[in-house]
């Protein structure tokens, strides 16, 4: 069982942003997508979420093409957290989180909304307006919005942008908890140390292609990351079993 992309090509205008890409996102695991700017990470995520149809190839959940799924069914299955966390209207946080239930709208809604607010530690924010929240609070509310839909797949595009280090770690832990709950989580990250910390699997991208994919222990090597980003990257032992990735210009 997996959310899988099979030989996906995506052309936007004349530009080929994904070039025969095949990848798997496994349930119960966090898959981190890494690569330099313009590598096609966001495109990969958008195709996987069914937001754009691939020019060639297919995206399937357990063999079922997501392009053939009903919109509501796909929305219930795949949650997508876009990069820019803007909310157009100054709604209450509760109203924002309730949007996550648009494709459901059943007797379970209230329970799911409450659970999502609790899982992101945002219950106390419910009655506040999103315009008055801090960046960290807003990020938690927007994550709660996706969690309220109880998706089997959660695709998050750079959810850590504009968060301070403590909130970055906090949000990653919450994403990992979602994966431990059984969902397949794919997340685009730019911070290598945070990626190394949270990843079960990793997909490395460059120029619209996948250059490496697989378990994090095998893919996130100093050499692979050095080549991918054209930097010097290596693992550092922090003692007591802790490890992190350090980077320096080449």
């Amino acid at each position, binding site marked *: 069982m997996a959310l899988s992309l099979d030989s996906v090509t995506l052309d936007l205008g004349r530009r080929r942003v994904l070039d025969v890409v095949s990848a798997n996102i496994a349930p119960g695991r966090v898959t981190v997508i890494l690569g330099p700017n313009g590598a096609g990470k966001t495109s990969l995520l*958008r195709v996987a*979420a*069914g*937001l754009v149809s691939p020019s060639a190839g297919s995206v399937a959940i357990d063999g079922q093409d997501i392009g053939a799924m009903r*919109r*509501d069914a*796909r*929305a*219930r299955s*795949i*949650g*997508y*957290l*876009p990069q*820019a966390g*803007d*909310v*157009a*209207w*100054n*709604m*209450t946080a509760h*109203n*924002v989180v309730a*949007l*996550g239930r*648009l*494709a459901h709208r059943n007797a379970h809604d209230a329970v799911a909304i409450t659970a999502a607010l609790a899982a992101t530690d945002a219950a106390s924010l419910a009655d506040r*307006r999103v*315009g008055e929240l801090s960046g960290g609070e807003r990020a938690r509310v*927007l994550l709660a*919005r996706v969690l309220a*839909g109880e998706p089997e797949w959660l695709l998050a595009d750079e959810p850590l942008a504009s968060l301070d280090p403590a909130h970055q770690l906090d949000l990653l832990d919450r994403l990992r908890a979602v994966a431990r709950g059984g969902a397949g989580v794919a997340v685009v990250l730019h911070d290598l140390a945070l990626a190394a910390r949270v990843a079960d699997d990793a997909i490395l991208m460059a120029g619209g292609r996948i250059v490496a994919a697989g378990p994090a222990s095998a893919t996130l090597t100093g050499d692979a990351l050095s080549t991918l980003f054209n930097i010097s990257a290596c693992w550092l032992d922090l003692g007591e079993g802790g490890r992190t990735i350090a980077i320096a210009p080449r």
Partner: protein
Amino acid sequence: MSRPVRLSLLVALSLAMVALSLAAGKQWLPWAAWTGQDPRWAIVIELRVPRAILGAMLGAALGLSGAVLQGYLRNPLADPTVIGVSSCAALGAVAAIVLGVSGAAGGLGQFGWAMAGAGGAMALLGLLTARAESPVVFVLAGTVLASLAGALTAFLISIAPNPYAVAEAIDWLMGALTDRGANDVMLAAPFMIVGTLVLLITGRELDALALGEDAARSLGANLTRLRWTVVLGTGLAVGAGVAVTGVVGFVGLVVPHVLRPVFGARPSALLLPSALGGAALTLAADSLCRLAPGAGEVRLGVVMALIGAPFFLALLFREGGRQWR
């Protein structure tokens, strides 16, 4: 105060405005005149009832389409005039006046031409935005349509064959409910009712759009269908309204703003209230039109701008733009 209570109050306000609209005018009609043998009964039945119905429908259409467009474009500045439907309907009507065919087919001429203008605007908007699924393209296309229609309208007026046609066209452009009768109601009502109903079903997808286009799609929103729904609903409701009353601005812009602090910023929560509020505001303004000193009436479009603009400025000062940040 819960939402049903607030809605009930708004309904009560709208009904009060209907009553005011029936009573107010050069000839004030007391309650006694509404009920029986009083000869002034004719004023109520033949003049004021159709006018009140038309005012309520027009206001509801304008308020609702303003709320829908603001939600759709995620922009508090949107109203029916920015997508060009009003201007194109006006162009059609002015063309009928200038070409001297406004009375053709038993008075259907001007209405038909105006609806053709609105229909043309809808088709062009739909086609222009079919390739780029983006509200930005939508509003750009609408703005271009509006300026083109405005220029063509001015062109037609400047080549009008006689001064009467010029006067009639300009007078009509200012928008009014004056002397509109049961015929006008019968002409416009089917289109306006269908358009209003179409606009009322957009709430769920407008809510999703608050999170952006990608998030809306990921929540199951069909943005292509939504675009056509918005174009069709606005075209029918506002197009038919403009076709019988001329251009009335400000309702679509002001009403959702006034009601947003009361009913919340969620787009779907604003649709029904904006329709009711639009009806109430239009009826109030139309009643004011008739109270102007002198023999004539002030044009509804003029009164609306005169009360709308200062009111809106006051709102901006008081809020300091708080609800949009």
